[in-house]
């Protein structure tokens, strides 16, 4: 049995030391140290989350600051709202359209970058990562211009292949694909960085031993590297899905939820209802639904991971 020690990240070198607080009794100073953070958490996280739930059962008038209890009215209203379902569908389309491609592409690029003796791996990594850092309003404006029907670079490029100009952002069938393309551009580098770190932790003894035994590159990847990379893949998936479900900037800048609500994702819908139509209670109800969806997705993935993800040092006993 080969005892494979994964390469520990350098900065965690001293982390194995067991550290325990020495003092046996409660230290009053601790409360003083915790006070600022806890007060801020209370005012800006705990009160808001409770208030969100309360608001979702109210009609709140933002101008007079008065609330009237309406029971489940807001929830009933959203269940009867076609726009609400549209926004759920748009969010699902955006999330499941962008995340799998981003993750697969990132894994592929990370594996290429991980090749021994590759010159310029750092430079490539930097180039892939750059879009992630800038992806906000500026980048969205650039992409809006790239997708321009008449003068955009994308239609000009497609023109070389004889494809007629596509009205990317102004027709319902192509607006979401356009947003997804932009999102993949912005998100790949982030996932590449995480996958590279994950790949570095795969013990080279294992892959080398397999190579000596005559395994092909494909076999080594799918039988050894990919299973060992599962915790990283899961982490990237969870983070990417949670982030995608909360998209706002790109949508607001490039399509403003249109055309005909085709890209009206859930956070944009909340923004519209609460801050353009001032339906605070209704917006809060939609926000609570978003919260439940995100929690449920995370829970499902975490539970699923127990079955499919191999963690270092774990023994398997399923049959």
């Amino acid at each position, binding site marked *: 049995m080969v005892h494979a020690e994964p390469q520990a*990240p350098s900065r*965690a070198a001293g982390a194995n*030391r067991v*550290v325990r*607080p020495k003092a046996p*009794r409660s*230290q*009053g*100073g*601790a409360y003083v*140290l*915790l006070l*600022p*953070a*806890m007060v*801020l*958490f209370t005012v*800006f*996280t705990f009160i*808001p*989350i409770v*208030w*969100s739930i309360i*608001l979702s059962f109210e009609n709140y008038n*933002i101008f007079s600051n008065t609330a009237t209890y309406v029971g489940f009215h807001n929830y009933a209203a959203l269940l009867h709202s076609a726009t609400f379902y549209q926004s759920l569908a748009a969010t699902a389309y955006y999330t499941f359209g962008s995340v799998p491609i981003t993750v697969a592409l990132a894994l592929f*690029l990370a594996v290429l*970058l991980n090749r021994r003796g*590759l010159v310029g791996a750092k430079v*490539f*990594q930097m*180039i*892939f*990562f*750059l*879009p992630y*850092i800038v992806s*906000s*309003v*500026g980048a969205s*404006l*650039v992409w809006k*211009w*790239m997708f*321009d029907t*008449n*003068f955009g670079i994308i239609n000009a490029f497609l023109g070389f292949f004889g494809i007629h100009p596509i009205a990317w952002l102004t027709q319902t069938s192509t607006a979401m694909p356009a947003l997804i393309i932009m999102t993949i*551009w912005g998100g790949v580098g*982030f996932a590449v960085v*995480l996958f590279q770190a994950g790949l570095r932790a795969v013990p080279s003894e294992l892959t080398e031993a397999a190579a000596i035994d005559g395994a092909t590159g494909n076999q080594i990847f799918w039988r050894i590297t990919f299973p060992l990379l599962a915790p990283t893949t899961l982490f990237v998936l969870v*983070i990417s899905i949670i982030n995608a479900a909360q998209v*706002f*900037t790109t949508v*607001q*800048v490039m399509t403003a939820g249109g055309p005909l609500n085709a890209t009206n994702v859930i*956070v944009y819908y*909340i*923004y519209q209802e609460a*801050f353009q139509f001032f339906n605070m209670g209704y917006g809060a109800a939609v*926000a609570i639904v978003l*919260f439940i969806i995100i929690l449920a997705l995370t829970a499902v993935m975490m539970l699923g991971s127990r079955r499919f993800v191999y963690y270092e040092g774990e023994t398997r006993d399923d049959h």
Partner: protein
Amino acid sequence: MITERRVRFHATTVLVYLVLIVAAIAMLVPFLWMLGTAFKSSSQVDAIPIIWIPWPLHFGNFVSAWTSVPFGRFFVNTLFVSVVSSVGQIITSIMAGYAFARMRFRGKQVLFLLTLSTLMIPFQVILIPTFLIIKYLGLVNSLWALILPNLATGFGVFLLRQFFLQIPTELEEAATIDGASRWRIMAQIMVPLARPAVATLALFTFLWSWNSYLWPLIVLSSPTKMTIQVGLSYFQGAHIGEYNIIMAGSFISLVPIIILFFLTQRQLVEGIVAGAVKG
């Protein structure tokens, strides 16, 4: 046999580089297209066939962009928000992180779980009540509306706690024997040691402040109070269709962040790998 292998090896290597180069070009095209457009005159923007590289370079767009809205003001506002938020977060995170890592007290587990739970709650979910709180505090259209909710984060506390846990206790024990008080130990030994974590926290808080859009869009309304992303959005609203000027403005908004990226990219990558991800 060997030569055949070698040929195959070379072929794969060439293919790998080819794929990477194509991917890199795809990543860079938006930046080049932005720059190319920013240097075009209005007639060149709408020219068919497309003018790929404008000549002569038309610098006027940058002047038009810079003078049409108070970009300088946007930068100063953003800088103010990010610096104050960073400093606040560093202080609250060091304090709470130290308490969680090194001190013993009743309710520690509960308080730590509460801290972690803040990471589970997306800001978008609590957007509406947070706005109402800011409104009650009379801070709508003030930069403090951006700073206050960001003065302490679960991410910062957790990051510093993890860092303090890695520091060996021997240092503190020696200092205790020498008669140093806990407060002195914290201020003079632990805080200087935590510098890398503090730098990571500052960097990510800065990036977050720079790129955040939804919250500033909601709470800020007058141009003199705007941060860069809202300002840029406001700016493009004034130049609909004038893509040469819009691209010049976008470029202006990206310059500081690109410079920061080149200066700190190693730390950025390490921070992200260390789980320093702020959703």
